[in-house]
C-alpha cells in the first residue's frame, strides 16, 4: 500500500517517521507534539470541570433568566434531580451531600489550566498556521452544494479517498472551529461573568449576556453543547478505530488506512 501523507499534515512534524509495526508499511505524521499535549491537558481539565460543574449545579438545580433568581422566584426551568441543599424545593425527600467546597476549588483550578493551555494552543496554532492548514475548510468546500454532496456521501458511508482520509473533512473542520472559537470562548465568558470580582472590573461582561442569572443559564447550555461534542467526538473516534485514533493523538503518528471520521 502506498503511503499518502497529506502534504498539509506532514509539514507539521519535521522528523520523518522511522518506526514501523507489523502490518503497515509506514506511519504518517498526524498531530504535532503541541496539539497532542494541549489536547490531553484539555481533556483532563474538561472532565474535572464537568464533574465539579455537576456537583455545583445540584446545589441549586434551578435556572433563571435576567439578573436575579432564588427559591422564592419563578424559575425558567428546574432540573428534575435532587439537590444538595435543603431549601431547594425538588420534590425529593432527601438531600445529597454538599460537595461544593472542593468542587468549586477544582472547577476554578481546572478552568485556569484549561484557559492557559487553550491560549498556548491558539497562539501556536496561529503562528504555525495549524488552523489555516488543518482546520480552515477550503473555499470550495463550504458552498451549500459542496456541503450537501459531502453530506450525502457521509450518509451512504462512502469510504473517503486516501487523501481525504489523512486530513480532516469539512464537517470535522467546521465542528472543531466552532468548538474552539465559539463554544470555548462563550463558556469562559459566561463563567467569568459570574465572578463578582471580574464583573466589578468589567460590568459589560454581565450586562451583555442579559444579567448574572442569564450568564449562569448560558454557561449551563454551552457546557451541554460541549458535552454533546465530546460524545460525538468519542463516537467518531470509535468508528474510525479507537486505538489507531487515540494512538495517533498520543504518539503523533498513524497508519494511513481506513479512516472515515
Amino acid at each position, binding site marked *: 500500500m502506498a503511503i499518502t501523507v497529506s502534504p498539509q499534515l506532514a509539514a507539521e512534524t519535521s522528523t520523518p517517521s522511522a518506526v514501523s509495526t507489523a502490518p503497515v508499511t509506514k506511519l504518517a505524521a498526524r498531530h504535532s507534539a503541541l496539539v497532542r499535549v494541549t489536547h490531553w491537558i484539555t481533556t483532563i481539565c474538561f472532565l474535572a470541570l464537568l464533574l465539579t460543574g455537576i456537583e455545583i449545579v445540584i446545589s441549586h438545580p434551578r435556572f433563571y433568566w435576567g439578573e436575579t433568581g*432564588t427559591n422564592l422566584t419563578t424559575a425558567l426551568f428546574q432540573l428534575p434531580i435532587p439537590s444538595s*441543599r435543603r431549601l431547594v424545593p425538588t420534590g425529593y425527600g432527601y438531600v445529597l451531600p454538599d460537595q*461544593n467546597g472542593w468542587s468549586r*476549588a477544582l472547577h476554578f*483550578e481546572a478552568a485556569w489550566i484549561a484557559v492557559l493551555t487553550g491560549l498556548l494552543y491558539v497562539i501556536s496554532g496561529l503562528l504555525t498556521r495549524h488552523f489555516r492548514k488543518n482546520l480552515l475548510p477550503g473555499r470550495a468546500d463550504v458552498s451549500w452544494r459542496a456541503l450537501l454532496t459531502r453530506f450525502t456521501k457521509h450518509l451512504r458511508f462512502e469510504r473517503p479517498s486516501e487523501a481525504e482520509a489523512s486530513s480532516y473533512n469539512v464537517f470535522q473542520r467546521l465542528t472543531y472551529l466552532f468548538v474552539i472559537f465559539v463554544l470555548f470562548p462563550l463558556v469562559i465568558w459566561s463563567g467569568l461573568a459570574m465572578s463578582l470580582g*471580574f464583573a466589578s472590573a468589567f460590568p459589560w461582561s454581565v450586562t451583555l449576556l442579559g444579567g448574572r442569572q442569564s450568564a449562569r443559564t448560558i454557561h449551563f447550555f454551552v457546557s451541554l453543547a460541549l458535552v454533546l461534542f465530546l460524545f460525538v467526538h468519542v463516537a467518531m473516534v470509535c468508528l474510525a478505530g479507537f486505538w489507531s485514533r487515540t494512538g495517533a493523538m498520543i504518539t503523533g503518528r498513524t497508519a494511513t488506512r481506513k479512516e472515515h471520521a
Partner: protein
Amino acid sequence: MIHLSRRKLLISGLAATAGTSGLAVAARLAQKYGLVPPDAGGIYGLGETLTYASQRLLTRHSLAREFPRSRISPRPFPNELAPLTEEFKRLQAGHFADWRLSVDGLVAEPASFSIADLKSYPSRSHITELACEEGWSYIAEWVGVPLSQVLNLVGVHPQAKYVVYTSMEPDTWDSIDMSDALHPQTFLCYGMNGNELPVVHGGPLRIRLPRQLGYKSVKFITHLTVTDSLKRFGKGLGSAAAEGGYAWYVGI
C-alpha cells in the same frame, strides 16, 4: 525514535531552569505584594492563588455593580440560619440595645460600639446583588457604615494586613485583606431595603462585601480584629469556611 541533539538538550535545559526560577521569582513577588491567599496550601493552592492575585491586580479600585431602586428584588431570599443561641435571644429581647461590636488588634485605640453608636455616623447605602455560591442571587439596598470609617476611628497601624471578623453564630469567623476592608462598598450593615436589617438576613449587624460571594458577608458581627498575620487564627487558613473546604477568597 526521539533524536535529542545537544543543541536541543541545551535549549530544553535552559528553558526548564528559566521556567523553574521564573516560577520561584513569581512566587516570591506574589508573597511580597500580598497576592497569595492564606489558604493557598494544598492541591488547589495554584487555582486559588491565580484567582486571588489576578483579581487583586484587576479589581483593586473597581466597584461592584450597583442597580436602580426599581430593580430591588421584592422578596429577598433568607438562607438557612443555625439555631440562634440563648445569648442572641436575650439580646434580641432587648432590641439589641446591648449588642456590642468590639474592635482590637493592631489599632491605636481599641473600642467598642453599640448599634446606636454605629448609626450615629453618617450612613451609606448601595443597591447591590447578593450572590450565593449555590447559584441564586437577589438585589437589595444595604444600609450601614463603611468599615473604613470604623477603622479610621480606632486608628489602624500601618503594618495591618487583614481584618478578622467574628460572628455570634458559633464557630463562624472570616477575614478580608486591607484592600477589601478599606473598599468604599464594604459596610458594617444594619439596614436593608429601608428597614432595620432583619435577623434572617443577619441583623442587627452584618458585614457586606458586594464583590465577594454571600458566605463572605458574615451575619451577626460582634468582633473585629486588625492583624498583620492570619496564622494565629484557627488553623491559619483565614476563615472558618476555609477550614471547612470553602475558599477564603470568593471574588469568583
